[in-house]
């Protein structure tokens, strides 16, 4: 078979056909992989929440978002058999050694820390990455801490007059970790007091609406990621 001439018609046709075939093929693959991708994302989120609020894998999760200075926090309320066993807050700090640090922290109903872990960071391997559970047991010390009992209600490293033992040679990373948790805690407590205030004037319609948006938000959130 002779090679095709490079006429304008041939060129346009060829490119068009190739792109069309590619688009159809990709659409097909996309449809097959859509569910596994979604599942992998859900799984990842659930695992992350389960670390900071143990037992979350057996319950249902209600999600809500909250804008704060310079970013967005996400709260995951974990409900097992109708009882809220804790709330995981995805929080952040921009003051890490490598910039942004994202932290997941779990609080009980009184605002005590259940557990915490780093989600994403760009800290130095071997130093700042000890904030992650998979690297070092450093963040175990946050278990059970109650920020409301602390001086000025601020979570700080010992160097700054707080209670947290910073990672050796990674004070900046440790401070950023505390900063992230502090931000999450404050938002969580504000949210509780707001919820209490709202509870005084119950409005059933609104609660129904709220859960609906929650589901939508979860869908939206996972699609965006």
């Amino acid at each position, binding site marked *: 078979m002779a*090679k*095709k001439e490079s006429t304008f018609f041939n*060129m346009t046709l*060829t490119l068009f056909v*190739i792109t069309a075939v590619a688009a159809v*093929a*990709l659409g097909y693959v996309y449809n097959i*992989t859509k569910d596994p*991708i979604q599942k992998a994302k859900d799984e990842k989120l659930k695992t992350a929440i389960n670390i900071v609020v143990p037992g979350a894998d057996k319950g249902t999760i209600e999600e809500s978002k909250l804008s704060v200075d310079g970013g967005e926090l996400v709260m995951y309320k974990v409900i097992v058999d109708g009882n809220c066993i804790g709330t995981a807050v995805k929080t952040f700090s921009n003051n890490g050694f490598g910039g942004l640090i994202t932290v997941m922290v779990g609080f009980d109903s009184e605002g005590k820390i259940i557990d915490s872990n780093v989600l994403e960071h760009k800290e130095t391997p071997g130093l700042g990455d000890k904030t992650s559970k998979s690297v070092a047991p450093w963040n175990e010390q946050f278990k059970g801490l109650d920020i409301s009992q602390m001086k000025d209600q601020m979570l700080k490293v010992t160097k700054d007059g707080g209670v947290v033992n910073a990672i050796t040679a990674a004070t900046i990373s440790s401070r950023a970790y505390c900063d992230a948790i502090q931000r999450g805690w404050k938002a969580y407590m504000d949210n509780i007091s707001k919820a209490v205030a709202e509870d005084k004037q119950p409005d059933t319609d609104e609660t129904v609406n709220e859960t609906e948006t929650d589901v939508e938000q979860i869908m939206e959130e996972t699609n965006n990621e």
Partner: protein
Amino acid sequence: MNNLKNFTKGFIKENPVFILLLGLCPTLGVTTSAINGLGMGLATTFVLVGSNVVVALVKKLIPDKVRIPSFIVIIASFVTIIDLVMAGYVPALYESLGLFIPLIVVNCIVLGRAEAFASKNTVFSSLIDGLGMGLGFAFALTLLGAVREILGSYSIFGYKFINTDGILVFVLAPGAFFGLAYLIALMKKINK
């Protein structure tokens, strides 16, 4: 015989990384551990084989002047397929390779083989060529990843053999350059 040669040349004699110095961005970027290097290498192999075969199949139907854009679309399709598949089935690996998966599309090896080999040879020898080159690339990435992992975190394929921090610089950016420099020098020596 010829096919065997086509297959093995990618490992030492025409190794894309050590000898031809192609595709260095992913080589340096993802090789913080042996498993990452292997994953990246296999993903690239898939794209190489796929695009080589398709290019060899349709080479006569494509007018010369739109050759390169057509090849790019074909390659980009395979890259997207592997991107979606990895996101769905190996999410942890997918995350650690990150940006470098979509960037396979601009990996000079892939377009280079499509243009230099697949557009002139039969489907079968293009398949062998893609497989050989791809596995050669995977071999190079795994080797560099293993060296960096052994020195940088005292572990290999995730198994730690000395329980302390390694020589950190090897998992950081400079270690990628150092590791590759010495491996290239070594390969030069072996090839002589």
